[in-house]
């Protein structure tokens, strides 16, 4: 079972946000972010869940070693007893997922509904999402039902990030590159001068 994210299908209804906020471990506080991309341009919205990176940047930068991964690769919220509230993870995450919660002095984030997924259920957001923007299921089923293919490799400049959550993209997309520098033929002149 894997998690698939397809922002192109998002209709902005916030069912995922509301349903996430129902979880008893963080009741009233959603761990999903959902934003308009550019409200003045289009009704396009995009949900963001934790991508559950193979080698999570948030954990790499945590000075208190508070961010742990389960054996099956789920990246958890910072451990309350270890988290020092420094927000390194909030700043470092390339997907903008973790949030520092002042009332708890703790970083909290999407844990893929570990209480549900560890029992074989779907995460709450993917259960309720009415438009298929958030989906949880066997990869072979998703491949059969959708024309898009999931991508798990992202390049942020020099950093390559591999994730457990798949981002749906047009078939043939192997990696998503989000840094303009990667598309430039040669190193720009000012950079050479500085170097």
């Amino acid at each position, binding site marked *: 079972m894997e998690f698939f994210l397809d922002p192109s299908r998002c209709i902005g209804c916030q069912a995922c946000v509301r349903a996430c906020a129902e979880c008893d471990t963080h009741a009233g506080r959603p761990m999903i972010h959902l934003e308009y991309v550019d409200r003045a341009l289009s009704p396009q919205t995009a949900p963001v869940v934790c991508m559950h990176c193979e080698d999570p940047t948030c954990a790499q930068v945590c000075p208190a070693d508070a961010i742990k991964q389960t054996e099956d690769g789920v990246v958890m919220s910072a451990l309350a007893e270890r988290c020092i509230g420094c927000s390194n993870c909030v700043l470092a995450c390339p997907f903008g997922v973790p949030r520092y919660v002042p009332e708890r002095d703790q970083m909290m984030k999407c844990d893929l509904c570990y209480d549900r997924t560890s029992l074989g259920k779907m995460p709450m957001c993917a259960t309720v999402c*009415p438009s298929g923007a958030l989906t949880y299921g066997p990869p072979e089923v998703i491949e059969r039902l959708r024309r898009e293919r999931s991508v798990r490799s992202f390049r942020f400049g020099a950093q390559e990030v591999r994730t457990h959550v798949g981002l749906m993209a047009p078939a043939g997309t192997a990696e998503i590159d989000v840094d303009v520098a990667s598309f430039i033929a040669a190193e720009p002149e000012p950079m050479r001068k500085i170097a």
Partner: protein
Amino acid sequence: MATLPTSEDELIARFGPHPMYEPAGGFARRPAAERLVKTHCCFCGVQCGIQLKVADGHVIGFEPWEEFPVNRGKLCSKGVARYLQNDHPDRLLHPLRRTESGFRRASWDEALGLVVERIRSIQQRHGRDAFAVLGGASLTNEKAYLLGKLARIALRTANIDYNGRLCMVSAAAANKMAFGVDRAANPWSDIPLAKCVMLVGTNVGECFPILTDYVWRARDTGAKVVVVDPRLTPIARTADLFLPVKPGRDSALFAGILADLVRRGAIDREFIHAHTVGFEAVREAVAKYTPLHTEALTGVPAASIVRAAELWAEAPTSMLLHARGLEHHTKGVENVLSTINLVLATGRIGKPGCGYGTITGQGNGQGGREHGQRCNQLPGGRDIENPAHRAEVARFWGVTETELPRAGLSAVEIFDAIERGEIKGLLSLSINPMVSLPDAAKTRRALERLEFFGAIDFFLSETARHADVVLAGSLQEEDEGTITTGEGRVVRLRRSVEPPGDARVDWRILVELAARLGFADKFRYTCAEDLFRELCAASSGGPIDYGGMSYEKIEKNLGVFWPCPKPEHPGTPRLFEGGRFAHADGRARFHVVDYRPPAEDVDRDYPLFLTTGRVVSQYLSGNQTRRIGPLLDQAPEPYVEIHPQLAEALGIAAGQMVRLATRRGELRLPALLTRAIRPDTVFVPYHWAGRLSVNRITHRALDPISKIPEFKVCAVRVEAS
């Protein structure tokens, strides 16, 4: 005397709307669920299956119900947050009686006694029809049936109608004219089987979010999606073809598409010949709607009109679905008929993946219009002016045919008659016309002229504030019953909790009123299932036949589609299979539709179109959803959508306050600049009350057949404020 008994501020302080953010006792003290109740959402016509978590007699949350086939656990934000209407501080817990300075608690005996005394007094002095009854399309089938029977048997008034009159009645009337019966022709499971899906005036993503998945499952297998709407709604964003029609021009657009199909020979002559009547006249009538002429009328590029015809013609199967955008017009019926002409001319109906339907907006938009709470209709979808139908129902109810009232006034007309002083008394159940009717100042003047107004509701709506007596009724989760969804599937609602305090289940209030009016013998019910049994028997043999249904059968099958005339009948998910329609000769009818402009078109003084609609987190007049904190936060106040080109021409910046003026009045709202709307059109969502209500400035003109108001287009002037 139905002016407000005290200031609006005082009423709001006591009765809300107050936003509720947590279940009773707060999230921190939320107990574990003792049981999960399988029931349905209390909002739109999709009626998603949902499980309510119950502990210690309180609804404390929800759990997805993945086995229910329509939504398979999926929900929108409204469904997820709906449980927060329970244990709500605004909840009416006992009857209220109006005083000089507000409302005071009344006993049930006093409240019911007063309602009955005023019904008798008004009817004796002014005639039976001087007392009107208004219901809602969120009521269960049981309650809708009972309200109709109460009006006709115990009050014997002709004037009973419902808020479906503000919803999809144009589709209902057109479906009856074209097909001989009023129901969406296909189950939604046909949508993913279609190779072309045409969505007309239906903001699927926000108003019926679950159906988005159906449309996109079709797209995943290569279907083309065509969207007709003046706004680029979330579903339109990914359409293969978007036709941004000028408000009020839909029938011209569909004449143009049909004309192009005729020109390219892409019509189904065999189907037309074998199963329909009247095509030749339609073919002649649409001939003048060339792509260029249609472009001039509709503002849709000729090439897009031709492309729509091409996509429709190329697809072996197709579904056409529409909603309020097509129906809320003074020619709503004609608009709907123009789309049905397209479906019939190409024979795309009555087959897997081929069909047509309106998507009803209200929870029981379908069932609420079937069993007699409409001014022109009796149980079983029978026509109140049809002598045979009248005789059948009179016999069933044990009255003479002459005792049965004739057709009465529709919802908007009832308010006009109140304002004229012809109707003196009103009993309402779950309807909030102060927010939902057009031209709110006129609605208010009418309410203020009432001699007596009794309202049954669970929250004190903006309309119930005007009441002399308020009877504390029940929320959906406090009663048993059935709902008929937008696809014609009858589903079962389960009681999760009892009404709180001294509030009562709605139908028991109606039964008590009937008894006090002297009709106890005709209203003997001990449970909601008694009512359903009677409703099914009453519908038996009628056009809308529930004769073979039972609670047990509905529960076992997770819903049963009507017609279902006999216990052994499996129900009918898809209508018109084999080209058999419900008219006596088995044929469908074409109708000639010639485009005519809206009742109030743009001119020099009011040069822009105003159109209205919903947002995803709110439902109808907001009497429930404006009290649910997270849903209110998602859309706290209305705004006016303006295209940046128009905003620049008018000197309006993003977020700036804007003055909207129509011939009814003015409204001040912040500007939301977006390229997702025609530059000649502005849009305001309608869920708010008082100074925020767009229905203060909408137009009250009605469709001559369906009596639906023209919410979707009037002329407006927009200025920076």
